[in-house]
């Protein structure tokens, strides 16, 4: 019956391709991600996410807490949504004034981090989100998350 199983699975595979294909616009956005990479920026990886399985502690009030690290620098972010509109409050560690670009799949917004490294950005849409942080020492880029 193994061969029959393989054939039936293959029929399903073909059916999925006809009836539930990957939307073309999505595929294009994945292709485009290659040219949109910031090759010069250092990747700050996600080191903490209050939505992760391991994070047993849930912050109250629907605030999601995220931490990114590139080794030398940390970026901490609190993200909350009210009626579909997102608000981000972040801080760069060690603190320094910086230019922060908040990026989505097809938009970006520039904000400033103050002398204490703090920054905010409101009116965000849900979806993929990444921060570019221009520090004196160079540029950081946080790993993409789904806001």
């Amino acid at each position: 019956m193994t061969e029959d199983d393989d054939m039936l699975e293959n029929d399903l595979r073909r059916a999925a391709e006809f009836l539930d294909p990957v939307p073309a616009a999505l595929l294009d956005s994945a292709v485009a991600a290659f040219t949109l990479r910031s090759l010069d920026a250092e990747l700050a990886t996600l080191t903490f996410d209050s939505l992760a399985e391991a994070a047993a502690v849930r912050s109250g009030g629907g605030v999601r807490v995220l931490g990114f690290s590139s080794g030398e620098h940390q970026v901490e972010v609190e993200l909350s949504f009210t009626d579909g509109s997102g608000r981000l409050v972040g801080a760069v560690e060690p603190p320094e004034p910086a230019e922060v670009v908040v990026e989505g799949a097809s938009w970006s917004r520039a904000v400033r981090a103050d002398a204490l490294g703090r920054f905010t950005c409101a009116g965000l849409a849900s979806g993929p989100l990444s921060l570019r942080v221009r520090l004196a020492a160079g540029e950081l880029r946080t790993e993409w998350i789904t806001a």
Partner: protein
Amino acid sequence: MTLPGPREVIVDHESIGRLFQAAAKGDAAAWRSLVEALSPLVWSVVRAHGLSDADGHEAYQTTWFRLAQHLDRIREPERVSTWLATTARNECRKIIRSGRKLVVGEADTFDRIPDERTPETVVIESEEAAAEAERHRRLWAAFQQLGDKCQRLLRVLMGSPPHSYQEAAAALGLQIGSIGPMRQRCLRRLRVLMSEGGGP
């Protein structure tokens, strides 16, 4: 016996590994081929988690955007499909945990991307394979009558190359050893549903 994939896309781990390495060296065409070869897998993982269209699109995008960021960090290129399945699963679970899925059935109120079939698909369907299309629809209807666990497993397998149990296990958080027997059970059940529905 090797069955041809839906579009004859080369999806064995070795070829995928080579594409990945070329992309990591800056080959944009290799990246495109990688996206084309493994998008059905990412999409099927998203579908298996039952997200709304809008949420599903976001999980799909985050997964691929992340891979682009990790091009020079993945140590085992031939396991990139498993990396994608795992990442997509994590994104889906976070979206579900965030509770921003308002209510079940909300999907219809999100912007739906309309029929995205390629012109080729439409032509094939209209001219050549009306009967096959009908068979697909009957198969799909039977599939949708399966229990949740079977739907999830089979949906992931549909987006995966044949015999890629490793990806399915990663996508669903199951032991790899459980995939084979479960697949067999689910396909058997699907056959029963097909015959009950007067299937082929």
